[in-house]
C-alpha cells in the first residue's frame, strides 16, 4: 500500500514479526503485520524524520516482534487431556492387540490433538517403529547366533501368532509411546 522507501531495520523487524506469527491463521497474521507496518509509517510521519535513531525509537517502543506475536495468540493453549488424548494414549498402550492397525489408529488420533506440539507428536509416533526396528535387529541377531535354529527367531507371519520376544517388543513399543506422550501432558504452562 505504502510507497515509502523502507529502512532495512523496518524490513527486518517485519520479517521477524511474520516469522514469530507463523502460528496464526494466515489472514490474522497478514492483518497484524499490516497494522504494525501502518503504525511504523504513522510514527515516522509523526517524527518527521526517517533517520536511524527515529526508526530505532519507533521499533523499540513497539516491543519485540516475538512479544507482539505472543499477545496475538489465543490465551489458553494449555495442554490438557481431553477425550482425544485419552483415546490416543489407550490405543497406543494396547496397540499390541492389533499389531499394525493399533499403531495406525493411534497415529491417526495423535496429530489431531492440540495438547502436544509437533515435536512431541513426531517423537511419540516414532517410538514404536524404532522400538520394533530395534527388536527386529535383536531377533535377527539372536537367530544368527543360534545358528539358524528356528526356536528363537520364529517367523511371526507364518501362522499369524507372535513369539514371546515379538510380543514383548510389540507391547513395549506401544507402551513407551503412550508413556512418553502422557508425560508431555499437563506440563507447566510456560509457553
Amino acid at each position, binding site marked *: 500500500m*505504502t510507497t515509502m522507501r523502507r529502512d532495512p531495520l523496518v524490513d527486518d523487524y517485519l520479517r521477524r514479526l511474520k516469522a514469530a506469527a507463523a502460528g496464526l491463521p494466515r489472514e490474522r497474521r497478514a492483518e497484524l503485520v499490516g497494522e504494525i507496518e*501502518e*503504525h511504523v*509509517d504513522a510514527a515516522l510521519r509523526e517524527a518527521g524524520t526517517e533517520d536511524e535513531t527515529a526508526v530505532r525509537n519507533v521499533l523499540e*517502543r513497539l516491543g519485540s516482534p516475538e512479544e*507482539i506475536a505472543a*499477545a496475538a495468540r489465543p490465551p489458553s493453549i494449555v495442554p490438557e487431556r481431553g477425550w482425544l488424548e485419552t483415546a490416543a494414549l489407550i490405543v497406543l498402550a494396547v496397540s499390541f492387540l492389533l499389531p499394525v492397525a493399533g499403531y495406525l489408529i493411534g497415529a491417526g488420533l495423535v496429530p489431531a490433538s492440540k495438547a502436544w506440539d509437533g515435536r512431541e507428536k513426531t517423537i511419540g509416533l516414532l517410538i514404536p517403529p524404532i522400538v520394533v526396528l530395534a527388536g527386529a535387529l535383536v531377533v535377527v541377531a539372536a537367530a544368527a547366533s543360534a545358528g539358524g535354529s528356528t526356536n528363537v527367531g520364529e517367523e511371526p507371519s507364518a501362522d499369524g501368532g507372535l513369539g514371546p520376544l515379538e510380543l514383548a517388543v510389540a507391547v513395549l513399543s506401544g507402551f513407551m509411546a503412550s508413556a512418553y506422550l502422557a508425560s508431555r501432558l499437563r506440563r507447566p504452562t510456560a509457553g
Partner: protein
Amino acid sequence: MEPALSQLRRGVLEYCVLALLRQQERYGFELVRSLSAVDGLVTSEGTIYPLLTRLRKEALVTTFWQESASGPPRRYYRLTDAGGAALASFSEDWARFRDGVDALLTHGGRDDHDAA
C-alpha cells in the same frame, strides 16, 4: 518489570481502550499514543494491536476505514453498545475496587468510623 503492575495493566488496558472510544472514534495509532501517554500503562506499543483485534472479535468495538489527509486510509475503531455496557460496568467495579484498595493502603484497614 514488576509482576503486580503488569498483571494490573493487563486487566485494565482493554477498558482504557473502550474509555478512549467513549467520546469519539479513533484510529489505531492514535489509540496507542493516547494509552502510551499514561505512565506505566503500556510497555510494548505493538501488543495493543492484538488487543484491538480481540475487542473487535468480542464485538465491543467495530472498525471501519476512512481516508486520511496525510498518508493511506486508516482503520478507525468505534465503541459498540456492548462495549459501552462493558465499560459502564467496569467503571462501577473499578470505583469500588479503587476506593477499597485506597482505604487499605492509606489507613491500613483500620475500621473507618472516623476515616472514610
